[in-house]
């Protein structure tokens, strides 16, 4: 059994009286594709937001690569190696595709004011490296031909891919994808499946929220199911699929 990359221990998050997450514990192993599924409003995206420091958890903690994650510090989460995409795409719409990916390199680079003013050799070398890496990633996800177009002018599927490229630019250990297949047709979804498998093959652990059950069951090594903010099941897809609690959550309790 491979080492744990991420361990959530009793994570809780409330919005007023609503318990969006209630004592959620789960562990993700290094190198696996881990699916997080559940009906709408089950708390999946809330979990992502806590994980990436956008929300401050009301309880519990997350241990990442052996160290506790600081709560609500997005740039700290990025530095530690957690990257994500969004359910509703959030690119820098008025920057080019290439620039979007280049911003993703920010966390791994360092040129500051002095560098910008002096344009010394190190700064120029770093800038060239940022440029090269952005090109590689655009090519990797398959939007290299749109590099100079504004992000808002890309097709929906390309925007999803670009967002993945931008997340990969931060050199993550864990890539969290929030419904990457939403709104994709079957050809695009198949392309996405291959992309995610390729990312895992490159040694990056993937955490996937997805509604496309076929995609999740085919792609993920293990799956956790959330319902009303609580984890109700966690195992390999074939077992989770038959778990009565899961069936009840999805289909309602009144099954005869």
């Amino acid at each position, binding site marked *: 059994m491979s080492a744990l990359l991420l361990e959530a221990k009793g994570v809780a998050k409330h919005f007023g009286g609503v318990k969006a997450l209630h004592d959620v514990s789960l562990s993700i192993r290094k190198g696996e594709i881990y699916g997080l599924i559940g009906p709408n409003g089950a708390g999946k995206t809330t979990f992502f937001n806590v994980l990436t420091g956008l929300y401050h958890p009301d309880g519990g903690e997350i241990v990442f690569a052996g160290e506790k994650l600081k709560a609500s510090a997005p*740039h700290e989460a*990025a530095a530690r190696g957690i*990257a994500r995409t969004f359910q509703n795409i959030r690119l*820098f719409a008025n*920057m080019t595709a290439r620039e979007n990916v280049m*911003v993703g390199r920010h*966390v791994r*680079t360092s040129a500051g004011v002095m560098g*910008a003013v002096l344009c010394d050799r190190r700064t120029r070398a770093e800038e060239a490296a940022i440029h090269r890496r952005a090109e590689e990633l655009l090519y990797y996800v398959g939007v290299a031909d749109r590099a100079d177009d504004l992000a808002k002018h890309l097709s929906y599927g390309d925007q999803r891919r670009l967002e993945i490229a931008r997340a990969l630019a931060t050199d993550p250990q864990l890539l969290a994808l929030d419904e990457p297949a939403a709104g994709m047709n079957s050809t695009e979804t198949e392309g996405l499946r291959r992309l995610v498998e390729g990312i895992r093959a490159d040694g990056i652990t993937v955490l996937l929220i997805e509604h496309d059950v076929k995609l999740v069951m085919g792609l993920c090594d293990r799956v956790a199911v959330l319902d009303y903010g609580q984890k109700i099941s966690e195992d390999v897809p074939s077992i989770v699929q038959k778990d009565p609690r899961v069936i009840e959550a999805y289909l309602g309790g009144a099954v005869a």
Partner: protein
Amino acid sequence: MDIFIQQIINGLVLGSIYALVALGYTMVYGIMGLINFAHGEVVMIGALVALSVIKLLANSGLPGVVIVLIGLMAAALVCMAVGFAIERVAYRPLRKAPKLAPLITAIGVSIVLQNLAMLIWGRNYHAFPPILPNGEHEILGATITSVQIAIIIIAAAMMGGLILLINRTRLGRAMRATAENPGIAQLMGVNINQIISLTFVIGSALAAVAGLMVSANYSIAHYYMGFVLGLKAFTAAVLGGIGNLAGAMLGGILLGLIESLGAGYIGDLTGGFFGSNYQDVFAFLVLICVLVFRPSGLVGEKAAERA
């Protein structure tokens, strides 16, 4: 004809200064959606600090240009510190407050700075010592001084440098990313507090240069000079489309030309009823017209896109 050329030259000089100041307004607005009404006072502080240093060194035997450069350095450093402090004290604690709150602190800071300047430099006008080579050159029947040529060239160079910084560097990308979506920029490892501070510092450095330019061109500086200048530069930023760098530059130059041509011809056009002392009216006429007919400015995006 030579009046026309002369007013164009005057307008370009004035416009270059407006453009530098307008950039400070527009950069801050672009990144935080906030009008920094204290920015005009930063220009004033730049002018007075530069002038004090220049006066101090006027009899040192150094060449005039060197003295002015030293004054400029001092002014830039002081203004950068003031800009940094303004953001920390007046805006950062209110980052999540309703938009009206930082607007009020902005006006408060403006009043504090004005009064502080009055205490330090007094209520009098300070004259710029005649240490710069003040040659006059003839162009198409109009005259332009060496100082004016320097103003236009330096302003153009600074604007060019700013464009390169914003478009070609890691910091510039981080600034644009923060302007578009601070939350996501943070996820890319951008420290947005640092970027916001930097925005204020850069804007204030430009303001210091503009302040020195005003006092060198009009040979005068006083504690109250920032108020009207700031309002006009704000008008220039709105004219170009607030939040848009190219717009601020264009708006600044245009406003300078409008003011200067307006002042030059208003006497003739109204049969002497209004004189060139109505110069200030034009800027605010422009502001009203832009707000009524094209609130997004000349090159600005529709306001809805910012929401």
